[in-house]
């Protein structure tokens, strides 16, 4: 049998990204200034963004599906890389962990996410997920002299390994049932009907739901998130609150809406309670946090709950709303972490909520930025957060889930309390001591980008909305 070279066009971004990651790993050995390594990573990633539109198609016998859906998610992942690297440069040297491997690991993790987004086969999906997860475990423990960072890494790893186990079990069950791991063939097999209530299929779907819930930090599989978010370096927290979560949603959408598309009545019974619990626990527990990274961890859990509404809706609008929300979330959340990183200086940890007291007095600009990100996370117009939430709620109502949406908006109103607390402390309290901000041009650029997009999408969402809708249409 002649060897046929598969079409490499659709995987070009992943290939270039891999080359880039390896190059960064090598370059780190010869380049002394780590800022240069960071800049190279950004430049390379920006180049990969340019490749995205040209890399559409299906290849490797359907194992890789590079469609609009995956392209949109890959855009979020690459954006996440650029923003994370920008906020990391100064921060790493303050934490005295300024090593080049950091950037390589971020790139490798992102390659994993990209594979997940365009996985047409459960095995590719698993490969991507493991590549992403293993790199992120290391990143979480990157401050190796800090016991909290080690704890974060270990917890994340142990629970993540469990999640992988669940995923593999789910895959094996579905393989046993359908005889294939190809997502579209599974969909075709199940679409023939007669599987409603099939116990093996239901167990398999539960296992998938469990595994993906781990990745998006949905309750009750969120236990790792607060500890991992708090202990990990802040820049990594920003990275993993956006990337792996978006990747989790990408595969959640792919598996549940394509492979299990015909079983929606069955799996929505699994996902609706998860979504409600996630919004409830995330928002309510966040109220009592004293550490801002921990608070944002619970907030991130809550946001996973909102986004689940789009998947539950299961319509094209639903998918588009999840995509738009992940993009919006990337901007507002990395923006918020950017401000937190600004507070970290040589002898000041700056990750307690009380550290924000009186910030507006001496640093009005930083406080104003945080204010806008907090209001965006609450979902108050005219910020991007509102547009994202509106779309999610609209598609869920349109699909008939009015009750769930009412619960969601109530929790969303509750969330205002803990986001507003930050604003309250910044503007309505006196500073306890002198706060020195560690700013850098890169961090400033990251904050400027996030701010502009949070406001821009809040006022004129059309461009990204149309992109998300077009991407969802190819799904």
């Amino acid at each position, binding site marked *: 049998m002649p060897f046929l070279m598969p079409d490499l066009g659709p995987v070009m971004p992943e290939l270039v990204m891999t080359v880039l990651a390896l190059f960064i790993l090598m370059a780190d050995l010869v380049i002394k200034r780590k800022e240069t390594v960071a800049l190279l990573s950004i430049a390379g990633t920006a180049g990969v963004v340019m490749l995205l539109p040209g890399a559409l198609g299906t290849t490797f016998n359907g194992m890789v599906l590079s469609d609009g859906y995956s392209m949109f998610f890959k855009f979020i992942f690459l954006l996440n890389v650029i923003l994370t690297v920008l906020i990391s440069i100064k921060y790493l040297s303050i934490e005295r962990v300024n090593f080049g491997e950091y950037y390589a690991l971020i790139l490798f993790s992102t390659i994993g996410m990209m594979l997940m987004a365009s996985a047409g086969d459960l095995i590719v999906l698993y490969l991507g997920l493991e590549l992403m997860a293993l790199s992120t475990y290391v990143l979480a423990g990157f401050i190796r002299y800090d016991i909290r960072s080690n704890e974060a890494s270990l917890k994340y790893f142990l629970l993540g390994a469990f999640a992988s186990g669940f995923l593999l079990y789910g895959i094996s069950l579905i393989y046993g049932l359908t005889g294939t791991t190809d997502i579209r063939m599974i969909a075709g097999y199940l679409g023939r009907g007669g599987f409603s209530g099939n116990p093996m299929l239901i167990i398999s779907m539960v296992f998938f739901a469990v595994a993906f819930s781990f990745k998006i930090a949905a309750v009750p599989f969120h236990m790792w998130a607060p500890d991992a978010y708090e202990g990990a370096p802040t820049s990594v927290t920003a990275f993993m609150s956006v990337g792996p979560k978006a990747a989790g949603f990408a595969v959640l959408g792919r598996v549940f809406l394509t492979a299990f598309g015909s079983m929606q009545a069955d799996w929505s019974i699994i996902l609706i309670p998860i979504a409600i619990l996630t919004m409830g626990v995330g928002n309510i527990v966040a109220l009592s946090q004293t550490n801002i990274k921990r608070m944002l961890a619970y907030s991130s859990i809550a946001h996973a709950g909102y986004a689940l509404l789009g998947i539950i809706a299961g319509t094209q609008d639903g998918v588009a709303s999840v995509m738009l929300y992940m993009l919006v979330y990337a901007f507002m959340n990395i923006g918020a972490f950017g401000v937190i990183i600004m507070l970290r200086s040589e002898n000041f940890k700056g990750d307690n909520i009380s550290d924000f007291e009186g910030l507006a007095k001496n640093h009005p600009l930083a406080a104003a930025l945080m204010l806008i990100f907090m209001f965006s996370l609450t979902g*108050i*117009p005219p910020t991007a957060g509102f547009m994202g939430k509106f779309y999610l709620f609209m598609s869920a*109502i*349109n699909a*008939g889930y009015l009750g769930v949406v009412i619960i969601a908006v109530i929790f*969303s*109103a509750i969330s205002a309390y803990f986001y507003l607390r930050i604003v*309250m402390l910044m*503007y*309505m309290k006196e500073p306890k001591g002198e706060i020195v901000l560690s700013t850098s041009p890169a961090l400033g650029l990251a904050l400027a980008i996030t701010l502009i997009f949070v406001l821009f999408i809040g006022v004129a969402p059309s461009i990204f909305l149309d992109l998300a809708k077009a991407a969802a249409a190819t799904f």
Partner: protein
Amino acid sequence: MEQTMVNQAGFPILSCLIFLPLLGVAALLLVRRTNESLIRMVALITSIAGFLLSLPLFTSFDKTTYAMQFVEKQAWIPAWNINYHLGLDGISIMFVLLTTLVTILCVLISWNSVKMKTKEFYISILVVESAIIGVFCSLDFFLFYIFWEAMLIPMYLLIGVWGGPNRVYAAVKFFLYTLVGSVLMLVGIIVLYLYSGRNFNIVELASKVYPYDMQIWLFWAFFAAFAVKVPMFPVHTWLPDAHTEAPTAGSVILAAVLIKMGAYGFLRFSLPILPDASRAMTPVMMTLSVIAIIYGGIICLAQTDLKRLIAYSSVSHMGFVTLGIFALNTQGMEGGILQMLNHGIVTGGLFLGVGAIYDRTHTRQISDYGGVASVMPVYAAIFIVFTFASIGLPATNGFVGEFLILLGGFKASQLAGVLSASGIIIGAGYMLWLYQRVFFMETGQKVAGLKDVDFREMAALIPMVVLIFWIGIYPEAVMGFMHESVRHLLERVNDGSANGTSLTKNVMEIMK
């Protein structure tokens, strides 16, 4: 997509009104924060320019039609069929004018009293102005919601940063009450939008017929947002805290225009879009109104804090407004709308007045005052006008509004009319008693030696006095604007489903 940017004013006047304050904000951002006098000047010039710009609305408004005027329409988010759609009718026009006027007075009254974070203060004031004008001008439900919510951010800061000792509590309470109501309305808006074939156009939504069950459901969803804002009993408890703790300018904005947004919401959305539900819910709404009138009045009698007393009097007065609106007859509704305006003028004036004296004494306790009339005669004369207008004495605007409301109320329900008339007597009781305790009797320790109002404070207070007598003596000056719109609205509400294009879609499609 039809697009209109030209109207009888010759230019997009409403957009200019909304964005002019934001232009002022942009200018303020460029001013150094230590240059406080320039910051104040920029804010003052912006607010005066806004007021002057709004005057053509008054002169070129066509009173012979209920149709929307000064209409602007631009596609905004085509994928969701959302338009940037503005327009005014006889119900909304007065509130735009009131907003631009009140903003000037707020800037004037805060001139010396705001000493901290001056730049942020005036930015917040101007952003609030912009958002409130946006609320009154929006003809797209989505756009309306954006302005409605966006107003929360600067208002939260105004109360929380520059307010009194208990300001943080008051600010958070204000924010959460309003937000919970608003998000429920958002769900209602989305349901309405999906049901009507993805339409946010308020005028078109108000010409269709919706199933009765759905109307009732939506009525309560909207009620959650509007009743909190009015505020109606029993969701009024945020108001005394917010009014009391807010800085003078914040109290004035809250009392004069912000809480009008709630009553405006009933007029613009609940009544025309949900006429059958509105009629069915009239007894409930009238009962709540009467409770607010009497309960608010009685609570006033027990207050020891100046601002808190006026805040509770707002609950009582806004009870009159909702009573008039839900009487669903011409007198009641015109009286209700007029009383919204009156309450804005009078209570705005009262808070301005209290602010002026608070700047001197730094106390809000009524017992700390006494004998103010002997040291500040001019101030006492102005304040008595506000007091009489608040009670509703003839020749003041309060009389016209309350008289019409009672007339309408009697026609709708005699019991409600009788009960709410007693609210006026209670009102006379607490206002006159307040005036007596503050201005007469023995001169209090903190009052002795106070200087009378200066030119700047006069400039802030006198416009309200003029308006009180103007509307009191010649109410047609403002009521002439609303006749057609009110007539049209009442036709829609009272005929309900009789006129309007019927939608055939099954309600179960959306409400499953």
